[in-house]
């Protein structure tokens, strides 16, 4: 900006100087034209308005110069000089004043611009400095971050390498293990088969061993068994004989006893016979007596005759019975001979042997 101002200033200055030159030249030229002062003033004011088409005017001035120089100079030099002196004075004054003003203006502007420029510079500088510092900080930070990142990347690389290595190792190990276990499986299967064959062989061998041994033992055992059986048989025979004899003896003994007992019985029977008779008689008498007593007690006053008759009959019957020596069993008559009255069942006619009574 400041540069532009300088340029524009110089440009304006140069323009103004050019204009001054033009004015001077016009002053020199125009009086020769015999133009009125108004026109000159007009021309002067026109000169001030001159800005752009200077070259055009310069061309015009140059063309005018060549035509009118020689004719006018000598005639109007004096008039011209006087007018021009005034004009020049005024113009000088005006020029000076303007110049002063302009210069003042320019100075002011310049100062202004300068100050503004300085301020701007400062401001810019500050900004720049700040930016610079900021950027420096950034740079520092970024450097640090960069370092940090580099470090991290290094670490990561390291880790990657380690992982790679370990994975490689691991893979190799697993491959080895795979091969090893494959081989082991194969080997173990082979061993298993061998062992199975061995087992089968043992199985067979034990089978035939057992067969042979058992047959062998069996043969011996058979002999032994036979032997043992013979012995057992003999023994059993002996025992049987013993038992036989023992029981034979017992049997004979018992038979003997039996015979003795029978004899005894017969003897006793024979002995008893005479005794029997007396026993019978006594017994019958007793019974009759008892009967009579009983009857006399119970049927005292009645039927005495009957009783007597009955008694007689009974005595006779008893005697008759006593005379019988029949060995037959006891015949207990339970009723008397008479029909009307019932008598006690009497045991008076019991005759017989002692044996039958006892029985």
């Amino acid at each position, binding site marked *: 900006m400041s540069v532009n101002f300088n340029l524009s200033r110089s440009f304006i200055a140069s323009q103004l100087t050019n204009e001054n030159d033009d004015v001077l030249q016009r002053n020199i030229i125009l009086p020769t034209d015999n133009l009125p002062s108004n026109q000159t003033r007009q021309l002067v004011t026109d000169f001030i308005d001159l800005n752009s088409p200077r070259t055009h005017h310069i061309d015009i001035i140059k063309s005018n110069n060549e035509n009118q120089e020689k004719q006018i100079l000598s005639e109007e030099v004096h008039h011209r000089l006087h007018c021009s002196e005034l004009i020049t004075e005024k113009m000088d004054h005006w020029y000076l004043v303007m110049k002063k003003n302009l210069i003042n203006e320019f100075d002011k502007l310049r100062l202004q611009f300068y100050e503004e420029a300085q301020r701007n510079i400062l401001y810019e500088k500050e900004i720049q400095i700040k930016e610079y510092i900021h950027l420096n900080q950034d740079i520092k930070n970024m450097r640090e971050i960069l370092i940090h990142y580099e470090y991290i990347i290094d670490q990561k690389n390291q880790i990657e390498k380690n992982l790679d290595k370990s994975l490689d190792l691991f893979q190799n190990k697993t491959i080895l293990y795979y091969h090893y276990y494959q081989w082991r499986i194969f080997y173990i299967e082979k061993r298993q088969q061998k062992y*199975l064959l061995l087992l089968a062989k043992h199985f067979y061998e034990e089978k035939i*061993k057992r067969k042979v041994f058992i047959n062998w033992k069996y043969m011996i055992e058979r002999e032994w068994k036979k032997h043992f059986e013979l012995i057992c048989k003999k023994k059993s025979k002996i025992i049987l004989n013993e038992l036989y004899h023992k029981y034979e003896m017992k049997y004979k003994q018992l038979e003997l006893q039996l015979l003795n007992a029978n004899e005894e019985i017969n003897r006793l029977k024979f002995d008893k016979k005479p005794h029997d008779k007396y026993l019978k008689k006594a017994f019958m008498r007793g019974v009759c007596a008892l009967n009579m007593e009983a009857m006399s007690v119970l049927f005292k006053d009645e039927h005495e005759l009957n009783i007597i008759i009955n008694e007689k009959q009974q005595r006779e019957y008893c005697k008759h019975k006593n005379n019988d020596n029949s060995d037959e069993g006891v015949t207990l008559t339970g009723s008397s001979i008479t029909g009307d009255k019932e008598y006690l069942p009497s045991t008076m006619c019991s005759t017989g042997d002692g044996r039958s009574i006892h029985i």
Partner: protein
Amino acid sequence: MEFNFTSSIFPKSTKSSKDRRHELTPEENDEIKEVFELFDNDKDNELDYYEFKIALRALGFDIHKTEVEGLMHDYDRQGTDKITYHDFHEIAAEMVLRRDLRDEILKAFKLFDDDETGKISLKKLRSVARELDDNANEEELKAMIDEFDLDGDGEINFDEFMAMLSSD
């Protein structure tokens, strides 16, 4: 007439072709069945190559790999690389019928005679009895040897062994 069973010039097979059996005894049948069931690991009623080889070994036939492969190839009709029970029975029956009794007896003798002195002593017999978990007492074992010890050396050699089994 005394046969020297251990001599090398004695004919190998003691069976003439007329005496050869054409039928399996029920024990042998059971044997084959038992072996099949024992060694059919995956219980699919078929034996693959290894199971087949092992089963044949369990019947006492030590067959080489190529022969086994050949047999499998012949009998494998479905192309599954496995042998059914029926085929196995066939193969095993044929082999069992071809079993040489003398060889078997020799094998058994060798098993009793583990230090290869050619004779079975009381000690060896006792160890075999212990192996088989047999509770035979000393008297029995002694009797076993004495009964068949014909030459009276206190031990059983192969001839006596053979005689013992033949008298069975």
